[in-house]
């Protein structure tokens, strides 16, 4: 056994495709032995601390580190002047300074770094760094941003093939024209919908350990979603070759998009290389709220036109997203928002405009659902409104317009794969709704809960419904390939044995099991181990994003296993060690003028889910309780059904959180609720039972027919929960999270 096999991610648990398989990391996780990024330790290590901007927008006049350097235990204080290579980085556009240079653009932007022997010494030294700021007026209103002075001197996203939009602070604009955008219907409904900023709120704070290798390079052990792209951003800023920077996956305490961008990777490496000591950085919860990007807040104006019998004729939507100070993945979120805002419905005519702006609000980027969540909240509110205007059952209206294979989307993409929208609607609608529970009952099962605010007086009940869809894998021409390496040999017992390498990030979703299940299925042996994820020894797996890792790792591992097996047999049983790269079907960009796809598809494939929700509302106090959730989700093929159900239940909880309680609140760009005391996420008392049905309609070009599963529940549940609250309260509820005032009509 090599030492590596003892690290997290390694296992000999059994199980093949389609079987319920216990997580390979379950035992170390239940015993407290699993090594998360914040648990790491190295002899002689220092603690790093990040000094952050207290302003949303300010010019930096001077940074004085002289006193901080004299503080006890301090080994280094670094500013932008100490960044040896490129001064800026970014996931897609290098617009973000490693450390602020002459201007800060958001509250919490990193300005300086400290390394000290004890974390408290580092914090105290940080307080002695004198930064003189000249505050500037912050751009904080996304509607006004396009008229205010630009927060970036040059547009970082210009010249990337996007639609030309000369207004200041525009990150990306997309216009999709489909059919006749002026087509009239018999009936029309309109609405304006808003969503606040949601936080991923993963429990494991941003953490990592950077260890200098003694030869000028560095090893970084970190909780991340995409090892190779971390490396590609880190190396140029350190002035190092790619091979000199090795990123290794440490235990990840949840991600949900919030670990796509860098957090401590560069800062830890700078301190480690400067001090020649290992440096550990662990963010506090408060720091975590400014340490990663959030879900984009949005404002969506929508108009639906339909025939008298309920067929959609024309959908017109204007979407505004606030990307915050830096680009992150906002350009792709903007594109997704445009792609999915009409919902999984046949729409022959559409006019969609989506704009994402820069501002001095918290930077936004990837979060589970990635641009589809915002649109789903809007289009499903519209569908309920249209059903009411037409006096048609809301489920019937959705079935009447459900997309199916062969239909054409507003982007011009013709659906060729699996698209069982009608099936998920029928299956979710058929789930039996529980009867209302009689009164009196324990107040814990009433709105207001243990607060004992009602014994049933003023409580009404409503049933809501929603459908959503989203892409799986990356889009618009991006080749997010996945590599896997397999070493295969015949063991002393004459049985096949294999060692798999794949840099896919296990963030809690269970991709480790998927990889092992695929390898065991293809090699027909249980004797398979997976080595820890690293940039060292295998090429990129792509990101733990876009519900893509099941599809992509299954593709890569299957390919590598099949070729390794063939080679081993051809050579008469000699050991084989090979790497293979899997590519999904090719996608194409949207035409910047028409928003129409320039090839056969803009997205690889689509996943859909429908959800039915029962809620109770105390209409006098504006308090609510979600009683029951039933859902049907299109998964293609469930590789590990227990894990699939776990994704659906957890994803549903995050959407419920956005519907009811979750919002990063800001005042003039400053976050005012950066803690779990003030930013609420659902607890055991908030989550109802979730009854989930899996619809297995295989995707033709996906390995084993499996689509992703992580995102659809989050896309649909916010809309479904609010639909139930509307039914119970009779209020319009056009903004999430829904506040007690909204429910009580104040």
């Amino acid at each position, binding site marked *: 056994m090599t030492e590596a096999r003892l690290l997290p991610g390694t296992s000999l648990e059994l199980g093949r495709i389609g079987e319920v398989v216990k997580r390979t*990391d379950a035992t170390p996780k239940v015993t407290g032995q699993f090594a998360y990024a914040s648990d790491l330790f190295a002899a002689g290590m220092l603690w790093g601390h990040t000094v952050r901007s207290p302003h949303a927008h300010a010019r930096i006049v001077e940074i004085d580190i002289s006193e901080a350097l004299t503080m006890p235990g301090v080994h280094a204080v670094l500013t932008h002047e100490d960044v040896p290579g490129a001064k800026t980085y970014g996931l897609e556009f290098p617009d973000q300074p490693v450390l602020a240079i002459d201007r800060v653009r958001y509250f919490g932007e990193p300005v300086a770094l400290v390394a000290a022997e004890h974390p408290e010494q580092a914090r105290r030294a940080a307080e002695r760094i004198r930064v003189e700021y000249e505050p500037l007026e912050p751009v904080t209103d996304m509607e006004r941003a396009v008229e205010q002075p630009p927060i970036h001197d040059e547009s970082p996203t210009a010249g990337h093939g996007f639609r030309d939009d000369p207004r200041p602070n525009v990150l990306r604009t997309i216009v999709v024209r489909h059919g006749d955008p002026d087509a009239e219907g018999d009936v029309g409904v309109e609405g304006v919908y808003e969503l606040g900023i949601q936080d991923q709120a993963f429990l494991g704070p941003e953490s990592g350990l950077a260890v200098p290798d003694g030869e000028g390079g560095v090893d970084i052990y970190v909780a991340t979603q995409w090892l190779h792209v971390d490396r590609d951003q880190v190396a140029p800023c350190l002035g190092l070759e790619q091979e000199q920077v090795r990123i290794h996956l440490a235990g990840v305490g949840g991600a949900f998009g919030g670990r796509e961008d860098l957090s401590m990777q560069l800062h830890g490496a700078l301190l480690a290389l400067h001090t020649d000591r290992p440096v550990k950085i662990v963010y506090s919860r408060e720091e975590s709220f400014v340490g990663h990007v959030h879900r984009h807040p949005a404002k969506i104006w929508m108009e639906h036109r339909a025939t008298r019998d309920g067929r959609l004729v024309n959908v017109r939507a204007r979407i505004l997203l606030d990307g915050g100070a830096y680009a992150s993945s906002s350009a792709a979120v903007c594109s997704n928002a445009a792609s999915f805002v009409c919902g999984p419905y046949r729409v022959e005519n559409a006019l969609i405009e989506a704009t994402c702006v820069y501002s001095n609000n918290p930077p936004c980027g990837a979060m589970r659902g990635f641009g589809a969540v915002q649109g789903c909240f809007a289009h499903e509110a519209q569908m309920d409104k249209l059903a009411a205007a037409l006096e048609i059952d809301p489920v019937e209206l959705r079935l009447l317009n459900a997309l199916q294979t062969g239909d054409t989307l507003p982007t011009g993409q013709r659906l060729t794969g699996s698209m069982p929208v009608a099936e998920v609607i029928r299956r979710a609608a058929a789930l039996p709704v529980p009867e209302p529970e009689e009164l009196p009952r324990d107040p814990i099962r009433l709105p207001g809960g243990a607060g004992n605010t009602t014994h049933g007086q003023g409580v009404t009940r409503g049933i809501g419904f929603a459908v959503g869809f989203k892409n799986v894998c990356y889009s618009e021409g991006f080749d997010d390939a996945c590599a896997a390496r397999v070493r295969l040999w015949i063991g002393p017992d004459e049985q096949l044995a294999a060692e798999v390498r794949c840099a896919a990030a296990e963030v809690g979703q269970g991709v480790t099991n998927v990889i092992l299940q695929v390898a065991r299925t293809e090699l027909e042996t249980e004797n398979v181990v997976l080595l820890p994820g690293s940039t060292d020894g295998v090429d990129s797996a792509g990101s733990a994003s876009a519900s893509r890792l099941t599809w992509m790792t299954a593709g890569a591992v299957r390919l590598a296993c099949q070729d390794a097996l063939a080679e081993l047999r051809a050579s008469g049983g000699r050991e084989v060690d090979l790497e293979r790269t899997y590519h999904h079907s090719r996608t194409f960009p949207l035409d910047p003028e028409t928003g129409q796809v320039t090839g056969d598809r803009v997205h690889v494939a689509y996943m859909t889910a429908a959800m039915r929700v029962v809620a109770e509302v105390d209409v006098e106090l504006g308090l609510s309780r979600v009683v029951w959730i039933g859902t049907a989700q299109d998964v293609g093929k469930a590789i590990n059904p227990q894990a699939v159900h776990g994704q659906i239940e957890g994803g549903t909880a995050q959407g419920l959180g956005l519907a009811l309680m979750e919002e990063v609140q800001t005042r003039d760009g400053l976050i005012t609720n950066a*803690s*779990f005391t003030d930013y609420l996420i659902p*607890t*055991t008392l908030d989550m109802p039972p979730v009854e989930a049905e899996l619809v297995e309609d295989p995707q033709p070009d996906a390995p084993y027919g499996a689509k992703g599963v992580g995102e659809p529940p989050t896309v649909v549940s916010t809309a479904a929960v609010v639909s139930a609250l509307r039914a119970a309260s009779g209020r319009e509820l056009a903004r999430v999270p829904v506040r007690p005032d909204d429910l009580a009509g104040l």
Partner: protein
Amino acid sequence: MKVAFSVNGEQREADVWEGESLLFALRERLGLPGSKNACEQGECGSCSVLLDGRLVCACLVLAAQADGHEIVTVEGLAQDGQLHPVQEAFAETGAVQCGFCTPGLIVATADLLQRNSTPSEDEIREALSGNLCRCTGYAKIFDAVRSAVGRT
């Protein structure tokens, strides 16, 4: 300052800074990182430990306050290489995803079942309402607790 306490049945000493939490001392001084650091302000329950048999958030107890007391962490639940029934139940029912909340939930569940061997649904929900989980939506955690009831 020097502190001494019993951790998982073993007498341990640590040289701590006066402001350090019991959580920091366990994780960084005593090599017991099983108790987790998700919020460090008593909101998430990830650092739940038993202090003299009572469930507490280790982040809200100073290391100095624990001097002379008995602490049980998630690392102390398995006996003689055998998982605690609550640990077994969490591993088998799919109650673990990223697992960062898991140690705290396991300690809190073990505490619940110690006090109440047949908790009702509402009692389970109320007892675990101080433990946040972001991955599972709690469904499989409830399954684990129900499953553990039969094993303890």
